[in-house]
């Protein structure tokens, strides 16, 4: 996996995480292979894709909104709708409900079900739910009625 971004040593005087756009990031869609773009917060939502050359013309590009039902900005149907409508272009939803180390099966399923029901009213589907690998044994496939992809966390001790 190749990471395109500034290393910390290069981030002299960095005002905030991700404040500076790495020139390579502008042209990522010209690379061969699969590309995942992590687009963070901001008042402009999906308009951030304006910074990626060819984003509006790419037939393969999918814009997926990651929603965690434990985040206050998306912890009710109204807030989820508000949030998604404020984003702009959204092609699909990834349900990412979790509470860090305090995540339980119940929290995941309850939250993700709310997300699924809410987005259905907007004509969207939850493509999959992201769940920490550590909970793999606790979850019965199909229990939450949403396909699951398990996450392996590589940096559990990282502070940020």
């Amino acid at each position, binding site marked *: 996996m190749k990471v395109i971004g500034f290393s910390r040593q290069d981030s002299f005087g960095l005002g*905030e995480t991700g404040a500076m756009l790495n020139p390579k990031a502008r042209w990522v869609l010209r690379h061969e292979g699969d590309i995942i773009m992590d687009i963070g917060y901001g*008042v*402009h939502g999906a308009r951030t894709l304006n910074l990626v050359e060819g984003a509006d013309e790419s037939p393969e590009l999918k814009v997926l909104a990651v929603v965690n039902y434990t985040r206050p900005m998306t912890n009710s149907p109204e807030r989820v709708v508000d949030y998604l409508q404020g984003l702009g272009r959204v092609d699909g939803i990834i349900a990412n409900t979790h509470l860090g180390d305090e995540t339980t099966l119940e929290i995941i399923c309850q939250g993700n079900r709310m997300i699924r029901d809410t987005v259905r009213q907007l004509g969207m589907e939850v493509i999959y739910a992201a769940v920490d690998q550590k909970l793999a044994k606790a979850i019965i496939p199909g229990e939450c009625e949403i396909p699951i992809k398990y996450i392996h966390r590589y940096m559990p001790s990282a502070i940020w």
Partner: protein
Amino acid sequence: MVAPVTPKSWYLPTKPHKFCPGCGHGIVLKALGENIDELGIQDKTIFGCDIGCSLLSWNFFACDSTQTHHGRTTPVMVGIKRSRPELVTVGYMGDGGGYSIGSQHLVNAAVRNEKLTLILVNNTNYGMTGGQMAPTTLPGQKTETTPYGRDPELTGYPTKGPEFISAITPDSAYVARATVSKYKQLKRFIRNALRNQLEGNGFSFVEVLSTCPTNWRTNAQQTWHFLEDDMEKYFPVGEIKSPFGKGDKTNVAD
């Protein structure tokens, strides 16, 4: 590999620079660098920068440079110039460093007609810290601290810096507003601002309208449109005060 032609006063070990793709800083610094070369002042130019994206220029030039604090570039340059008048002090800052936290220093340096050359890059937001409102943010513009659009009733109208600087300076000052979309004019205005210091006349100030596609979240077309159509509605480009001939506010293509 073919390398682009760069000014001699640019410091090559720090190139390519770290400014975002589409950022106007590179254009301004090139105009400044070419002028430093043409005027032959590389060895006696002191380059001071602020906090914010201008910070990235701290080791940009092959000139003695000092990075200061947010808004404090102006007083540091005053300290240098008053102690060593033979040096050419060039202060470089953004709209926040000049018109917000640095405004009291800017105003007072202007009133005292300090013989500095200040270049202020105006991109209507606080870029380095993630896109908050700046004094020059346009009405209705969304930023991280005006998520619903800037309301001039609550936060005032965009600051017109060169206009107020012109009002408080004597006729020996040089005050202009340039734009990165008109390079030759930008270069000419910076040259005049340096000349004004070299001739010992007075305060020299150039605001430069510049681009920030990263925080504006705009593609190339939208970026130019915002710069040329939207920003110039609020910020007229031209020389406002010049000891070198009639200051004229029309866009003059050189």
